[in-house]
């Protein structure tokens, strides 16, 4: 689905942001890209829908090279993107208009746009807010609208750029549930985060450091093997606890727990 070949990119000021990255992402995969602020994870994501063009190497999405500017519209239609700040990706005056913005750019007919807006609103559970203005929505609700806006483009891939970092705990888990649902229906998910708590649904973990991919594989295996020094910062509490319990042989490594519920099952399985 996505083939990234030897990709390098430098910021306008000359600092190297991405250093010869190669990565293949399959259709229907859920890939989490994690790393510290400034490791290049958001920059990598922006290459996938052509907001940035490679300095060197290539990014090919569904057979379309992002270097070929004539492909850009089709690439962006295939790979939708949701950003970190819920505030500044709102384009319309009302929820409905914001969601219609993408389809309008595609030049779709009015009835088709209406159908898509209605469906997108339903799938994020925001139908009741159709005519509301952004100011009346909470951060979590704004992110749901942002997700609906991307869904209305009917993309095959959705790119999430730290979408929960400005949300509180309950809206965060709402958004993650929605993403999980989307993945089940076959959408390819690429999820950038600095929170390893959010790893549990991913098929694959890509760890980045200073513009390079340092780990790429099954999240459970990677997390159970690396130490927090390798990783660069402290693990979230549940993972740290699981690691200690693994060292003490209280749990075994066949299925390393990544969330509270998994850890609970590992220690005291429900009957």
């Amino acid at each position, binding site marked *: 689905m996505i083939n990234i070949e030897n990709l390098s990119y430098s910021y306008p000021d000359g600092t190297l942001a991405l250093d010869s990255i190669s990565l293949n992402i399959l259709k229907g995969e859920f890939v989490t890209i994690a790393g510290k602020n400034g490791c290049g994870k958001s920059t990598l994501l922006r290459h996938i829908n052509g907001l940035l063009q490679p300095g060197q190497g290539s990014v090919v999405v569904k057979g379309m090279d992002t270097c070929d500017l004539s492909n850009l519209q089709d690439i962006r239609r295939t790979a939708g993107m949701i950003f970190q700040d819920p505030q*500044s990706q709102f384009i319309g005056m009302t929820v409905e208009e914001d969601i*219609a913005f993408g389809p309008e750019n595609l030049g779709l007919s009015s009835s088709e746009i209406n159908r898509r807006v209605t469906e997108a609103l339903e799938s994020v559970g925001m139908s009741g807010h159709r*005519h509301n203005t952004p100011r009346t929505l909470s951060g979590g609700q704004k992110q749901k609208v942002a997700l609906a806006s991307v869904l209305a483009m009917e993309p095959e891939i959705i790119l999430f750029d730290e979408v929960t970092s400005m949300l509180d705990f309950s809206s965060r888990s709402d958004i993650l549930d929605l993403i999980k649902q989307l993945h089940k229906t076959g959408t390819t998910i690429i999820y950038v985060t600095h929170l390893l708590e959010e790893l549990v649904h991913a098929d694959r973990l890509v760890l980045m450091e200073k513009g390079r991919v340092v780990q790429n594989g099954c999240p459970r295996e990677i997390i159970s093997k690396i130490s927090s020094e390798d990783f660069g910062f402290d693990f979230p509490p549940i993972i740290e606890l699981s690691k200690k319990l693994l060292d003490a042989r209280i749990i075994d490594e066949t299925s390393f727990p990544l969330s509270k519920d998994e850890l609970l099952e590992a220690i005291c399985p429900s009957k």
Partner: protein
Amino acid sequence: MNDLFLSFIPGKSLLHRLDPRTKIIGLMVISICILNVSSLETMALVGLVFSTLVFICRLPVIHFIKSVRPMIPFFSLIFLMQFFFTEGTPILDLNLVSGTYEGLLLGGIVTLKFVFLILFAALITATTSPSGLTTGIEKLLRPLPLRYFGISSHDIAMMMSLSLYFVPMLYDNFKDLKDAQLSRGLDARKEPVKAIMSLVVPLVRMSLRSVDEVALAMESRCYTGQGRSSMHVLNFKNMDYGLFVLFILLVSCLVF
């Protein structure tokens, strides 16, 4: 948000169902009429038309009061200028200047002109969704040869709707910022330049950042400024055609 100046009130009334283009042109026609009114009687007629429209559309009167309220200082100024600086029969004598009967009449009419201009504008924005309004403007602008200036009518419509969105957002940001700097002892009387800088610099930075981010969000949702369609289809109905005939009659009456 609900109390915001010139905001939209969703509904299904007669005015809501009219084509936005009819309403925009209607607003222009009625504005020309209002500006040509010269007697209190005609002004009363304008008032009657307005009240009837508000009544049949069942719009809340309070909304219109709120639309006019922020302009009251401006209206008072205009009224007082006319009242005191029009020559005629004095009815109120203050040593230096005196208010005249003619001034009272003229001031009343001029002020009412402005009040009704605002009220009709509020009537249109209350019954037209912001996107309907921008689509209407976009369609009306389309015949103009804008592309020679390097912009499309979509760009203009987009700019309008973005600014409609940005102003309240900037206002919210400004309030937070003011609170933050006040907490650090901001005192505009002691060092006005520094005080202003402490508010303007962050606000400009925030706006630039927001503009950048919005531009990115627009780009990633395939905006190119061309080939856009609209969720709202604009269709002239019999009602719209009927009104156009009325507009033409009104304007011709004024001209001849």
